[in-house]
């Protein structure tokens, strides 16, 4: 059995761990509020963007010559996956959930004999993927310096993706991120962004628009912007999810630490009692023998 001194030390160390997790929980809660707010504020832009593109793509008469970003290259050989994770750990299942989702998708693609390329955004995803898929990762981006998700960063990723698309490096692009539902639930998402997938949201607005200049030109200007917008949306959702996930993970950790302190304290008291009893017995039996 551990000595009294050891127990005392352990209790102290668990208590200080608890202090840290508690502080992290508070910080995450404060950041969560901000991240959630900006995720909500960012929604009108991506919604409007989606609307305009939907209207436009309905108006495109000549589907054959539509921009490639909309209709695809006509092949499905090379898949590019953009896996978006956080730069910091200690946030529960946040990163593992995305990775799990991504890995099952990767396995499916490789089973079909297709080519796979990966871009990781955020260092944690890179750490987890490079062991198995190290040779597939073509790019690794991390925004450790920027405090909050900002459009400028998203635009950088977007431009890179488009550059690679135009160079013919891939046919289909999918982004992986966590959608923020509430503090306890985040849903890992796989969203295809190239070619644009708007089946199922058939919008029956018969509104006819005037275009200036023509549809094709607007579309070819708009579609790259839409990529950045979608990535930005994913980043906002991700940062809200990360804080939410961290908050509940740290809440759990604090509670577990509390339980552990209780258990250790009982053990400590018991062994202290045992030591006292032992001493007493020794004294009494010593006195009796006289």
């Amino acid at each position, binding site marked *: 059995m551990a000595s009294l001194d050891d127990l005392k030390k352990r209790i102290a160390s668990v208590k200080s761990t608890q202090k840290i997790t508690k502080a992290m929980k508070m910080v995450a809660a404060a950041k969560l509020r901000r991240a959630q707010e900006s995720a909500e504020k960012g929604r*009108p*832009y*991506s919604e*409007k963007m989606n609307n305009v593109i939907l209207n436009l793509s309905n108006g495109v008469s000549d589907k054959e010559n539509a921009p490639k970003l909309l209709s695809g290259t006509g092949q499905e050989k090379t898949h590019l996956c953009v896996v978006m994770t956080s730069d910091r750990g200690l946030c529960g299942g946040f990163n593992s959930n995305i990775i799990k989702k991504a890995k099952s998708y990767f396995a499916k693609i490789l089973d079909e004999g297709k080519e796979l390329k990966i871009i990781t955004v955020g260092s944690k995803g890179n750490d987890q993927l490079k062991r198995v898929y190290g040779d597939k990762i073509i790019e690794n981006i991390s925004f450790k310096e920027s405090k909050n998700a*900002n459009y400028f960063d998203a635009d950088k990723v977007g431009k890179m993706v488009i550059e690679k698309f135009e160079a013919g490096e891939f046919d289909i692009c999918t982004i992986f991120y966590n959608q923020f539902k509430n503090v306890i639930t985040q849903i890992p998402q796989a969203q295809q962004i190239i070619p644009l997938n708007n089946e199922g949201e058939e919008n029956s607005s018969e509104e*006819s*628009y*005037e275009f200036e200049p023509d549809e094709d030109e*607007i579309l070819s200007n708009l579609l790259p912007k839409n990529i950045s*917008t979608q990535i930005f949306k994913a980043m906002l959702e991700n940062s809200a999810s990360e804080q939410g996930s961290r908050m509940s993970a740290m809440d759990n950790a604090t509670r577990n630490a509390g339980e552990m302190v209780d258990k250790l304290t009982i053990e400590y008291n018991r062994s202290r009692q045992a030591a006292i009893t032992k001493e007493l017995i020794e004294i009494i039996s010593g006195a009796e023998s006289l």
Partner: protein
Amino acid sequence: MSEEFKVEIVNPEKSFLVKDDVSEVVVPAFEGEMGILKDHISIISFLKPGIIKILSKSGDENYYVEDGIVEFKNNNLSILTSTIFNLADMDKSKQQDLLKQAEEEANKTDINDQSKYLVDQKVEVLKTLN
């Protein structure tokens, strides 16, 4: 009948401006400035660098934009843009910074014609502001 309509400017981070007593908006559309009044036909167009003028009862406002899309439908004008500044809040040093950036970009040789055109526009607009 009133001659006012609603304008909404959003950028990726937030909804930048909502105004519903606007009488006229002049936007720097790609093929030239475009004035929009109430009951304009539905239109989608994109912007080049320039000044958005918003004329309304509660006062006129001017904004500097670098890019964006305008959509007008049912007397709702939506402007989506990633870079927008209120001219009233923009001081000289900010202008100089933007101008310097734009000029640097314009002097690059490896850009295509369209972005060259846009950058030149940017430089011109920023120069007229000074």
